[in-house]
C-alpha cells in the first residue's frame, strides 16, 4: 500500500502531479475497493493530463488509486464485464492492461471490441469523442495511452 509501487507503471512527473492535485487529496483519500467503485461510477470522462499545467484527470487519479490498492485481477475482470457503466469498464480495461499478463489481456480486452458506446476523452484541446472499441484498439496496439507508457506486450500473432 504505497505510492512508490505506482511508479512502476506511471511516469514520475505525472505521478507527482496526481499526488498534488485536488481530486486526489479530496476524493481519493482512504478509498476502499467499494468506495472506489462508487467514485468510478461518477466518472464522466477518460484521459491523461490536460491544460496548460497538465492537470491529471480524475480517471488517471482513480487508476493510480487502483494500483496503490493492488486490486486483484478477479475484481478488475468484474469491472470490465459490467455493461451498465462504460467508464468503469474503461477504467478496468486500462488497469488490466497495465497489470495483466499478455495472454489474459488479449482474452479479456478483445471481448470489448463489440462495444460501440461513446466516451468523452479530455485532452489538451478540451473534450473529444472516442468509442470504446477505439480505446481498446489504442490500448492493445499503441505504446502509450492517457499519458502513460504501457508495458510491452508481444503481438497477437506470436502468442
Amino acid at each position, binding site marked *: 500500500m504505497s505510492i512508490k509501487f505506482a511508479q512502476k507503471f506511471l511516469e514520475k512527473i505525472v505521478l507527482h502531479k496526481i499526488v498534488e492535485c485536488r481530486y486526489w487529496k479530496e476524493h481519493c483519500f482512504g478509498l476502499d475497493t467499494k468506495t472506489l467503485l462508487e467514485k468510478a461510477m461518477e466518472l464522466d470522462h477518460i484521459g491523461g493530463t490536460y491544460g496548460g499545467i497538465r492537470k491529471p484527470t480524475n480517471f488517471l487519479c482513480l487508476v493510480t488509486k487502483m494500483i496503490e490498492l493492488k486490486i486483484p485481477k478477479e475484481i478488475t475482470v468484474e469491472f470490465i464485464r459490467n455493461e451498465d457503466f462504460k467508464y468503469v469498464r474503461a477504467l478496468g480495461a486500462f488497469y488490466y492492461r497495465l497489470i495483466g499478463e499478455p495472454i489474459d489481456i488479449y482474452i479479456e480486452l478483445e471481448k470489448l471490441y463489440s462495444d*460501440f458506446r461513446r466516451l*468523452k476523452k479530455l485532452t489538451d484541446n478540451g473534450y473529444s469523442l472516442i468509442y470504446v472499441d477505439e480505446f481498446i*484498439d489504442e490500448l492493445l496496439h499503441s505504446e502509450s495511452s492517457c499519458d502513460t507508457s504501457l508495458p510491452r506486450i508481444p503481438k497477437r500473432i506470436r502468442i
Partner: protein
Amino acid sequence: MEFEFKFEQKIESENEIISYDSDSDSDSDDEKNSLFKNFKPIFKKKEERQQPSIEEIEKQEEEELRRKQERENERKIEVQKQVESLLEAEDLREKKGGEDENGNYQQENFFIDKDELFNQEEEKEKWKIRELLRIKKEKEEETSYKREQLEIKRRRKMNEEEKLKEDEKLEIGKFAKQKEKQKWAFLQVYRHKGVFFQDEDNPIIQRDISAPTERDIFDKSLLPKVLQVKNMGKKGRSKWTHLTDQDTTYLKDEKYSIQENNFLFPKSNKNDNLENQFKNQIENQKEKEKEEEEEKEKKKIQQKYLYNYRRGGDGNLEKPSKRKN
C-alpha cells in the same frame, strides 16, 4: 539693431499634427527632435514687431481645444477596441471550457457521450466499418509475418555461395548500390543543410544545396596559387587550400614519402590483383631462401679457413677438440 527672438510654428498639413500627437508616448529625445523640425526661428525688426491681437490668441486657444478633443476621441476608440478583444477572449474561454468551483473541468457540450440520444442503427453501421478495417489490418499483419517466416526458413537452408549469388541479384547487403558522389568544383564552398522541417513539400527546402553557386562555377585553378585559399582578402582567410594538398604520403620526395614495404599504404601493390600479390610474396620468399643458403655456404667456407688457421694449416675440416694436457 535689436532683434527679437521668436518662434513661429511651421505647419504644413493637418496630418502632421496627428502624427506628432500620436508620437507623444515615445522617448523624450524623439520629442525634442520633432520640436526642432516643426519650429523655425525668425528675426524681425523693432518696427515690424507687433503684439498678437486678441483675435489671434483666441484662434490659437480654439485650435488647442480642437486638438485635445481629437486626442480624447482617439483614446476612447482604442479603449473600446481593447474591451471588445477582452470580451471575445472570455467568450472563447467559456467555449473551450474551464474549471468550476469544485475544481472539475466543465465545457459546453460540443461532444455528447449519451448514447440514448443517437440512432443505434447508425452507430452500429459506423462500428461495422471500424471493425472491418481492424480485421483487414490484422490479416495483413498475419500474412506479412508468415511470409517473413518462410523467407527466413528458405534462406537458412542455403549455402554461403548461394546466398552471395542471391545478394548480387537483388543487390542487398554487400552488393547494395551506393549513392554516387557528386563532383564538386575546385574550392567550392560547403553549405550545411538544416535539420528541421525537412519533411515538408516545400520545393525550396528540397532543392540540392550542394550545387555550385555563382561564385563557385568559374575555374579557380586558373588563379595564381596565392589566391587559391578560402576567404581570400578577409580576416578569416586560411593558409591552406585543402587537406590533400598538404598530404605527403604518396610524394616522390624521399624526405616525405613512406617506405615501400609499409603495410598500411602499400605503394607497389596498389593497383595489382590479389593473385599478383601472392606471386610476389612467393618470389620474395624464394629469393630469401636463396640468400640464406648462400650465407650458410659462405659461413662454412669462413669456418674452414678458421679451423685451418687454428690447426696450423693442416687442411683438416674437423672441429678443433679441447686440448689434452
